[in-house]
């Protein structure tokens, strides 16, 4: 009797769990599992969206890796962005976070001002920077020339377009600032006091007390920064489009990466291959490269001790 009720209780609890999870279970199947398998399938097919897909073996794969002229530039740009943009963002975010914890007068006002650019919609923020940095009449170059500094071509110069994007990314540092600020305020005060009694200078206190305590947060910022870089799409695309003067509209073809492939990123290649060249098979190859890279770093994030999920709580 009691065994029976226990079994029915268990079944009820399983049904209850299923019912609560059902929106996500359906979403997982329809928007994750199915399209992912389908992407693998199409990566081995020749498909232009008009004629039925035909088996093409590894042709799409060799095309993307050996002949598609945009693949390696995009990968090189991604590497550049991971090293320079993510690196500078973490350093700058930590610096601004530190600064805000030291500011004692008007803290709320400063914090809000520092945070606001993070909220600017990416298209609007990029258009703003394309204007601010435009070499012809932009305010930044006007000011630089007034004080006699040679003005770079920013989004119109292949060697300055990524630094310009980095500047835009540093402007929107608000997310990292808040995360670092919370981490810095969590460092136990006693540790600073103890270090001060031992005669540690403020640099030594930062190096031996602050840094070790917040290092998990720095790791988190680096890894999520890398994952965000894999998805970096809107800003480089808009910057290239606006700087090149391409007019948007039906039937417009914009060869991404202006100037000279310097703003190409992997997600732009999926769009270029799939929706401009109608080569769905090769687009799926790039999509899978993107998937593999993202998942490697997501796995890193989840393996981190005491990481993103409180496992087994």
């Amino acid at each position: 009797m009691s065994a029976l009720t226990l079994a029915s209780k268990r079944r009820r609890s399983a049904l209850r769990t299923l019912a609560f999870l059902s929106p996500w279970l359906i979403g997982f199947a329809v928007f994750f599992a199915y399209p992912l398998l389908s992407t693998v399938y199409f990566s081995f097919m020749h498909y232009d969206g008009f004629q039925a897909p035909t088996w093409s073996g590894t042709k799409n794969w060799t095309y993307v890796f050996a002949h598609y002229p945009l693949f390696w530039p995009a990968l090189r740009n991604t590497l550049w962005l991971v090293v320079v943009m993510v690196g500078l963002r973490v350093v700058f975010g930590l610096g601004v976070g530190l600064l805000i914890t030291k500011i004692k007068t008007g803290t709320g006002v400063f914090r809000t001002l520092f945070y606001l650019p993070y909220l600017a919609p990416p298209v609007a923020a990029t258009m703003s920077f394309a204007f601010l940095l435009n070499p012809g009449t932009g305010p930044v170059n006007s000011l630089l020339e007034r004080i006699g500094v040679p003005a770079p071509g920013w989004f119109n110069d292949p060697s300055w377009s990524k630094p310009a994007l980095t500047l835009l990314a540093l402007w929107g540092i608000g997310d990292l600032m808040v995360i670092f600020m919370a981490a810095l305020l969590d460092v136990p005060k006693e540790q600073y006091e103890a270090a001060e009694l031992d005669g540690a200078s403020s640099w030594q206190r930062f190096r031996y007390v602050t840094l070790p305590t917040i290092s998990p947060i720095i790791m988190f910022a680096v890894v999520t920064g890398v994952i965000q870089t894999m998805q970096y799409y809107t800003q480089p695309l808009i910057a290239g489009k606006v700087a090149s003067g391409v007019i948007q509209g039906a039937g417009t073809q914009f060869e991404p990466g202006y100037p000279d492939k310097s703003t190409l990123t992997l997600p732009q290649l999926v769009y270029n291959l799939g929706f401009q060249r109608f080569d769905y098979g090769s687009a799926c190859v790039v999509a899978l490269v993107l998937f593999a890279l993202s998942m490697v770093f997501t796995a890193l994030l989840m393996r981190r001790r005491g990481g993103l999920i409180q496992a087994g709580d």
Partner: protein
Amino acid sequence: MTQLLDTPARTLTPAPEATAARRRNVLHWIAVHSLGVAAALFFTLPFVFVFLTSLMSDSQALSRDLIPHTWEWDNYRKVFDTPGFLTWWRNTLLYAGLGTVLTVVSSVPVAYALAKFRFRGRNLALMLVISMMMLPPQVVVIPMYLFWARQLDLSGTLWPLIVPMALGDAFSIFLLRQFLTTIPDEYVDAAKVDGCGDVRTLLKVVLPMAKPGIAAVALFQFFYAWNDYFGPQIYASENPGAWTLSYGLESFKGAHHTDWNLTMAATVLVMAPVILVFFFAQKAFVEGVTLTGVKG
């Protein structure tokens, strides 16, 4: 005791040293706050220049001037008069508004189950949620586009972007789950003892306590839809009647390719609502950022 010992020690400190310390503190204060002002200029000047340019006349916007000679508030009216601009507003509000409501309604029960139910495969489910959260949308876009455009004939509308939000959003589920784990189990157990079923416990006990988490999720989702460029580019680009503000904004530069003033006025109009919403809900928003970043 310690207080008694401390007080005389402090009064006994030699006066010159105290002045030196105070001077050092003042200098430190000045250094920190000048750095703060410099940083504040870096973060605010772009907004200022964009706003000033949006008020310039056509010819002045092409010059190197930084401050308008005449304040052309009319530029904003011109932007509103641009064919399509109001439609983009309506579409954005539909996508962001309806999308947010659907996301919250569908994500709350999932997050609750992941936070409070004990079942086999819970950690696996959570890991899959995180994987979905980290997945670049471009990875699955080819099959998804073929599904919405070819099977359901819905390209040229925003429905391929809104409907999926009724099936839970990974980021929202994760953020809510993080929030709900901070609510002690005792509240849930007490509700059970009082004879509440799971649904009633969730609605009457957990939800009222989860308001800050829900507010954060709603805000993030609203901003996500407001900012989304890739989604409308894939599904709505062929039909200007379905464009959103983020997507349509870029066409200003095309239509007025020399008039930075109108383009910047449109840019201000796309930024302003997000910033206004932020001022009303600052606390919930900052809480959400820390919750997904640090907690757990």
